[in-house]
């Protein structure tokens, strides 16, 4: 079952597909992000966020939470969001960086074992719970966020 899941993930990441909805990543070809890919990205982002030091976490955790919430929302929409057209958006850039990184892992350009890490991120990604809200209290923006793993 595990092997099958891994092959599905690897397969889905290796072969680009083009559709007309959700988030679209373009390199040499364009492809729409699938559910399994969104899950893998979430797992990776959670791991990256947790690996940061205390000082960085203060600003990076809310950014990751906001990105995951944004990604989930756009993924469900019918409109096409091309990441390359959103280069000024930090959230889109974070997703772009994540995808580039996952592709490099997959093609063996990093020290990571693709089978192991992709499986790990997909398992973690399933459990990631992210929430993000901005409120204005006394003319100041207050951020409320959650970035945790569901039990």
């Amino acid at each position, binding site marked *: 079952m595990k092997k099958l899941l891994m092959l599905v993930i690897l397969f889905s990441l290796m072969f680009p597909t083009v559709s007309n909805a959700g988030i679209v990543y373009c390199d040499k070809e364009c492809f729409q992000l699938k559910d399994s890919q969104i899950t893998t990205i979430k797992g990776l982002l959670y791991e990256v966020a947790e690996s940061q030091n205390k000082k960085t976490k203060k*600003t990076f955790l809310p950014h990751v939470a*906001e990105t995951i919430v944004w990604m989930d929302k756009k993924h469900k929409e019918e409109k096409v969001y091309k990441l390359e057209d959103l280069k000024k958006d930090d959230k889109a*850039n974070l997703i772009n*960086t994540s995808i580039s990184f996952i592709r490099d892992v997959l093609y063996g350009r*990093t020290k990571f074992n693709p089978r192991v890490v992709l499986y790990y991120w997909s398992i973690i990604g399933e459990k990631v719970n992210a929430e993000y809200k901005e409120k204005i209290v006394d003319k100041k923006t207050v951020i409320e966020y959650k970035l945790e793993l569901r039990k």
Partner: protein
Amino acid sequence: MNLIKKLLTMVAALFILSTCTSFNSNIPLGYNYNTERTVENLPRDSFLFVMVEEYYEHCYSSALNDEKECVVFKNTGIFSGSAFVVYNTPNGSLVVTADHICQTSSPSMKQKMTLTTLNGKTYRAKILERDSKRQNDVCMVYAKSLKKPPVKLALSEPKPGAKLFNIAAPAGIFNINMVPILEGRYNGLSFTGSAIYSIPAAGGSSGSMVLNYNFELVGLIHSLHVRFPTVTVGPSYVVLSKFVREGIKKHSNL
């Protein structure tokens, strides 16, 4: 009469001594390598151990303070190589290594290059010039505040069969005041124009200096033959010397 004899003896002794010195100075430094005199002339101090860390970076505007912040998204790998000083600028040194050391494994990655001297001091390196042609594979970097004696560039290319010396850190073998010194022969040029040496090498030797019998720079090792690893490859003397001279001319005031 005795005085004349003494004078003649002294003149003869002086003559013998003077011919001895002139004879010695004509001997190439690496001719009788196993002597303390020649060992001291090996440019070990010019050697630099290279460490390259590759990583992904992400920069974002923090929603909390609106400041731009950058985080190391992931460290993706670390590898080592060799390099050597070719010129001392007013504020640092120009260093030469192999180009694939200066190149990241993926265009999306960033890299941090650190140079370690034989006495263990480390310096950050900044890439200045690159020749990415596969047969050349040579790169020039700048290290601020680094001051080590530069390797002298030879005036002529080695002849096939010439004995050569190589100071390198194959497989990352390097420690404070310890760097492997290897020997081999120059074999000539390959059909692509690369210099071929019979100097033992391994991953980590990339970017190491190849010296002639006078301990002058004649080449650099950038790769080894897959099927016969004793045969090593580098840019030709003509390519390397042109690259070094032009790089020095362009960046000598850094």
